């Protein structure tokens, strides 16, 4: 646990529709940071957040089950801590050792309906969520393509919240910019799912990192927006195409980056320990239930750390959390 005392630091807010995988992503983040030997560490800012991260990461790595769906507002705060002596990346410009960069990561995990379809039902929670977004300089926005396949409500969910956020920030006299000031990491989740991977394969967006010992397919971040556009096009409602327009309308384009992610990663055949394009699904429905799932094999998060690190690097160079205006 890290004390909340000390200088204000920039915050990252997790944002996504219900069941888009926010808590799973966070649990996977903690695993990914360990697996990749990243210079970044994630620690809880309070006991509840520390416990949450420990429990969820353990459950995920054991392959038992996903975090339960959120029924009431959960509030968690973590701190991403970089390496102070690090001289590459964002620290390259600094000739002298500096204090370790620290970035707040807040998850206000709301139950469904807080942002969009039932705005009056959770009035207090909604206000808190908006406050969290207003007070953050970075946003991790989770786009669940499967939810889009089946429900197609991403635009409704996003646009409702964005208009409220913009109203709060752009509409106030204190802001002079024409866009929201946040850095936005758009995470296209569930890359491990058949429909997402096969879509990427059809679009010829898959690449393999020769350094990857497992041979997992990946999508370059530069191509992620192509997949995002395509997935929006085939959404159930057809309105998802407007999601990209809405993001363009409210955020600065140079502050948006797309990532294709998977919290659990692909299944690895234990006999080969290498990605098998014929058998990669890592989710299995629970016997005799068929409605909830557990994880088939070891978890190998894909592109989970990168959005956070990207945001961390972008925010580390910015002034402390003095508010997103500019």
């Amino acid at each position, binding site marked *: 646990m890290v004390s909340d005392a000390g200088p204000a630091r920039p915050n990252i807010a997790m944002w996504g529709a219900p069941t888009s995988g926010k808590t799973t992503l966070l649990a996977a983040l903690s695993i990914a940071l360990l697996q990749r030997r990243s210079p970044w560490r994630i620690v809880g800012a309070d006991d509840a957040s520390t416990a949450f991260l420990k429990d969820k990461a353990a459950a995920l790595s054991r*392959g038992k089950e996903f975090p339960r769906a959120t029924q009431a507002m959960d509030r968690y705060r973590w701190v991403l801590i970089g390496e102070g002596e690090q001289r590459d990346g964002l620290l390259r410009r600094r000739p002298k050792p500096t204090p370790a960069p620290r970035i707040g990561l807040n998850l206000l995990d709301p139950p469904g309906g807080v942002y969009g379809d039932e705005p009056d039902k959770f009035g207090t929670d909604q206000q808190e969520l908006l406050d969290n977004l207003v007070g953050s300089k970075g946003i991790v926005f989770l786009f669940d393509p499967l939810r889009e396949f089946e429900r197609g409500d991403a635009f409704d969910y996003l646009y409702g919240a964005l208009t409220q956020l913009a109203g709060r920030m752009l509409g106030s006299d204190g802001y002079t910019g024409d866009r929201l000031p946040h850095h936005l990491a758009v995470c296209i989740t569930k890359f491990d*799912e*058949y*429909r997402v991977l*096969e879509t990427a394969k059809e679009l010829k967006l898959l690449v393999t990192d020769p350094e990857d010992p497992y041979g997992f397919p990946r999508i370059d971040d530069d191509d992620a927006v192509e997949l995002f556009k395509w997935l929006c096009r085939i959404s159930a409602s057809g309105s998802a195409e407007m999601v990209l327009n809405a993001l363009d309308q409210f955020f600065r384009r140079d502050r948006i980056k797309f990532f294709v992610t998977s919290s659990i990663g692909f299944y690895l055949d*234990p006999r080969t320990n290498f990605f098998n*394009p*014929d*058998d*990669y*699904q890592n989710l*299995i*429905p*629970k*016997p*005799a*239930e*068929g409605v909830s799932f*557990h994880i*088939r*094999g070891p978890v190998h998060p894909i592109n989970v750390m990168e959005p956070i690190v990207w945001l961390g690097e972008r925010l580390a160079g910015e002034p402390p959390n003095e508010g997103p205006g500019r």
Partner: protein
Amino acid sequence: MTESGEDLLTKALAEAIAQLSGPRRLTVVEVTVSGITTFGLRRDETGTPRCRFGPPVPWTDLAGDPATDPPEEATEEQVLLAAVGVPPGSEVFLVCGSPDDPPTAQVMEWLRAARPEATAFTRPGARVETLLREILLHEPLCRSYDLVVLKRHPETGRLELSSHPLFLVGARRGDTLRVQVRCDHGDEYGTAFAVVAWQGPRPRLLSVQTARLTPGRYDFTAELERPGRVRFVGLPGLVRDDRDWAELIAAVPAVLGGEVEPAHLICAVEVSGAAKQVDERLIRVRQMITVMSGGTTPELVVSLVAYGAHSYDRRATQEPVEVAGWLMSPEQALHSLTDWERRGATTPGYPYAAQVEDMLAEVADRLGKTEPRRTVLLTVGDRPPHPPRVHRSEILPCPDRHDWELLLAWIERRAGMTLGAICDRPPEQADPIWQRLGGGAPIQLEVADVRRLGDDLGLSPPKAQRIPFPLIETP
């Protein structure tokens, strides 16, 4: 020309009758004190001489009594000629049986004058009817006679219509022949003993008699009673049958199915899922084996295969396909089924599919090691198979990468194979594979009529053979 003598008349008539063929006709006019009798003779299409005649036409019916009221000659002659009714082109014999009777002699003279080409005989007391009857009775056959039989192709079982020689050309009344045939269940008329006469390549139906015979071998005698009539001695209950040739041929089945080899019934049961459903599936399998092995059915051999659900949980053990027995007797199969019934449903495993592909692999492997025979694969279950690789259904691939489509296609192509299926769901709600597993007609578990399904799959005891002709064994 006038000739006399019984032998001479008989000889002449026999010779004239022997010369009959095709459209040729012979007319014999007999003149007696009773009047005029005309006999018309020809051969029918079987080569049998046929004679038609009526009662004598008395003089009074023709022109009154010539003794008491002699008519004008010309008038009398015309009347007589008209009364004789000789068909054009017919050879004519005139026979006067009462030469001592002047009116009769007079009429004979008129006839001879009117038909100078006719062969005339004067023979007191001659009875033409008797003479002709004797001649026809003892005439040698001018065409061979055969018995219509069926022969079975030794490999295909296909029935071929054939004939068995009875009497050759020249055979005479009283000739006999021993015949051995096998008779099966006949049709609604019984077994037909049809005799045909051959003229060139075409047989002509001579006579048909039928008898309702107990299936078995029959050793009987064919006797030529006279030209055109064959009598069978040693066949009980023969009755005349008036069906024509076309009707008889239509009654012949294409394939002889009397010697059906034992069917192999493979029951493949999904034993994962809800306990109640598994119990119900096993009940249907028991019913099928019990019903299909009962009665007079030829032997039934049964194989039992149970398959469940894959487990993709790395901590769980994989339950393989279980073969309780292969090519068992129905009794053994029912005994094995009891163990499964006691055990009930197996561990649930993966909920969206079952090891159908593993079951097909096991069945295909075992079938590949045996000679093709009449086999029914009856699959009883609900879930679809696992695909061999990642699939849009998102059902996880089979751990052993069995490809159900390839396996099923191989099984479908196998000689003698029939597919049947009983699925928990109605066909319109079941996964499409159940259409193929069910040979295009899967039936729903709850409404499964196993007897009818067995009929459809060809498992029922074969109905009694309907073989309308005697069978001759081929070497």
